[in-house]
């Protein structure tokens, strides 16, 4: 047994699935109808799901990234929900599920003054609370299903999968057909949410896919920090995550969206995240990608409004058997828009980490600025790191900068720290944590600590 398996016990735990409702595996219009019925979808949503299924069936699997042929959709149970209904109070959540979350540190996180917790267990939200003061500001924070019929039902209908249409790619179409769970946040114009909102979800049942949908609308001049954290237990059957995140940042608003994803090592993480940023608004992404077998993740920002601004700070850690293809995409439409990408990728024990980005500055985006800064660190000589930064600049009135660094962990730096009494594995972890520091600095304290723990866990198997 290696140390790594021992130490992952805090993350790789599973609960008894008994009593849970489970659909037949595989996908057909009947199943999609069944999901829709079970969820009491409005009619438009049922039609949307069926239309998405058609798109899914005629869209080929992407062939430009890491291989995903280990993924057999027929084996993926698309919908597993816990035997519990929505809960408002932590104490009311069934003990078994509560234990799982406690191991993941959620109640602690809440105690540390997080505003609300929307924790998704398998496909349904089982726990959801928004602090009174946030609700009093008119902020709506609810599960996606409730949002379909809630106060902002029309707004949801106008925006749902408009940024990420099902036609976008095969897994967006799949998401459109079978999405389940996720969060809806609406911040009214001018409202500044002082404390971060947090959602935490993870996969549990064997072979189950997860297709949560996150829809956030930050009104004019409003301000929000939303944190999403994911962890999943380890299974032997291929697992799929095809979530979707749509973020609307209105005129003069600011949204910070932070995630630390820690998927189990058999997960295919094919997630789609996109933000639409209006005039003078600011979008900030902080993204940590850990775990998973294969990841495709390129959060996209559309800088539509003049003088809108986006920043993307990301880190990816690919260990043994992992192929993580991550990056960011910036599309400049408005004048004097600016974007800034700063990423760190780490690969060790034969892992493959690919940084892939695209910056497009359209002809109308005069006076825009873009800067891309990507650094890769390889922990040994048999791991791999690739950098694929694309630039498409269609106006001469743009200021574009790009810097890429790729390197191996310095043996001499390791020796330097060791000569001060620090054991080798700790010395290496300190150097890697330092490399990741630009990202941890952007995270709330408990998340930065969790990320450093993850880095340590990932490295201890060396």
């Amino acid at each position: 047994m290696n140390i790594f398996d021992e130490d992952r016990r805090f993350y790789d735990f599973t609960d008894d699935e008994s009593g849970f409702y489970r659909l037949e595996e595989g996908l057909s219009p009947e199943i999609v109808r069944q999901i829709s019925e079970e969820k009491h979808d409005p009619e438009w949503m049922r039609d949307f799901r069926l239309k998405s299924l058609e798109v899914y069936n005629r869209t080929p699997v992407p062939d430009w990234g890491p291989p995903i042929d280990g993924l057999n959709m027929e084996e993926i149970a698309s919908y597993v929900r816990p035997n519990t209904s929505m809960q408002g109070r932590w104490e009311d959540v069934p003990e078994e599920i509560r234990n799982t979350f406690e191991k993941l540190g959620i109640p602690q996180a809440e105690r540390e003054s997080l505003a609300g917790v929307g924790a998704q267990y398998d496909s349904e939200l089982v726990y959801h609370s928004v602090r009174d003061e946030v609700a009093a500001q008119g902020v709506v924070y609810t599960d996606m299903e409730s949002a379909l019929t809630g106060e902002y039902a029309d707004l949801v209908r106008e925006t749902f999968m408009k940024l990420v249409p099902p036609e976008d790619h095969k897994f967006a179409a799949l998401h459109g057909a079978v999405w389940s769970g996720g969060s809806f946040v609406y911040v009214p114009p001018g409202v500044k949410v002082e404390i971060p909102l947090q959602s935490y979800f993870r996969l549990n049942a064997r072979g189950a896919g997860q297709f949560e949908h996150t829809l956030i609308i930050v009104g004019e001049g409003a301000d929000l920090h939303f944190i999403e954290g994911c962890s999943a237990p380890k299974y032997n059957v291929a697992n799929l995550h095809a979530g979707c995140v749509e973020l609307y940042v209105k005129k003069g608003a600011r949204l910070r969206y932070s995630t630390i994803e820690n998927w189990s090592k058999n997960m295919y993480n094919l997630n789609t995240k996109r933000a639409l940023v209006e005039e003078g608004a600011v979008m900030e992404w902080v993204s940590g990608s850990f775990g998973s077998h294969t990841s495709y993740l390129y959060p996209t920002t559309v800088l539509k409004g003049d003088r809108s601004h986006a920043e993307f700070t990301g880190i990816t850690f690919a260990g043994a058997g992992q192929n993580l293809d991550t990056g960011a995409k910036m599309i400049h439409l408005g004048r004097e828009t600016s974007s800034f990408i700063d990423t760190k990728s780490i690969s060790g024990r034969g892992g493959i980490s690919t940084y892939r980005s695209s910056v497009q500055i359209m002809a109308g985006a005069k006076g825009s600025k873009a800067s891309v800064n990507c650094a890769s660190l390889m922990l040994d000589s048999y791991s791999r790191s690739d950098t694929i930064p694309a630039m498409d600049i269609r106006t001469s009135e743009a200021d574009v900068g790009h810097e890429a660094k790729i390197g191996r962990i310095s043996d001499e730096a390791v020796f330097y720290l060791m000569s001060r009494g620090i054991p080798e594995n700790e010395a290496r972890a300190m150097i890697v944590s330092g490399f990741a520091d630009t990202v941890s600095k952007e995270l709330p304290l408990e998340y930065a600590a969790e990320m450093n723990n993850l880095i340590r866990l990932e490295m201890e198997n060396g």
Partner: protein
Amino acid sequence: MSDKLMKAEGLSVSIEEGELLHEVSLEIGKGETHVLMGPNGAGKSTFGYTLMGSPQYTVTGGRILFEGEDITRLSADKRAKKGMFLSFQNPLEVPGLTLESFLRASVRAVTGKPVKLFAFRKELEETLALLKIDPAYAERELNVGFSGGEKKKAEILQLLLLRPKFAILDETDSGLDVDAVRVVSAGIEEYQRRQEGALLVITHSTRILESLKVDRTHVMVKGRIVYSGGASVVEGINRDGFEQFISSGEE
């Protein structure tokens, strides 16, 4: 004999390209200050790195004893815990790791005890003042953007906080202006006084030696120690350079 703090016995060291040190022997007693001089490329730094346990060099013969114990196969962190220290000629930069958290981790590692935060802070502030280092440097990333002089001062800062029994100073004085040499020397004297710390000072100049009481001087040429004697040899080297020793290295 175990009354010697550190003993190198017939130490031969190789890298892939060939042998760099040939049967080097050297003994340093508790609290003694030894100087290792020699022309560039003689193997002085290789010797220092090997004593500290750099995996870059392979010991192909002989052994290293510290307080009578054979440490030839110990990793560098274990040597540090036993009380050894190496001040690097080119201290490494570690982005994202602050000087203070590095120092705290080191003190914890070397002592094997949790660091008492208040006492640590106080000692850090006093030592920074002694070495005329801007207190803001505690929050700076380790050696990142430090000038040559600042890096060397930071090494002496580590020396003082880690309290080793034996420290190797590899070209600590090189590239320093007169004021910086004075500050660094004061730090080293403090180490000698406070710890009764033993020193192996590797240098090819003699400026740093002006303020240190030297017990013994060794001259290394082409991977061999060709002369060991009292402090007076330093004056001869000042006057005539290493010429007088070069031929003895050719044997």
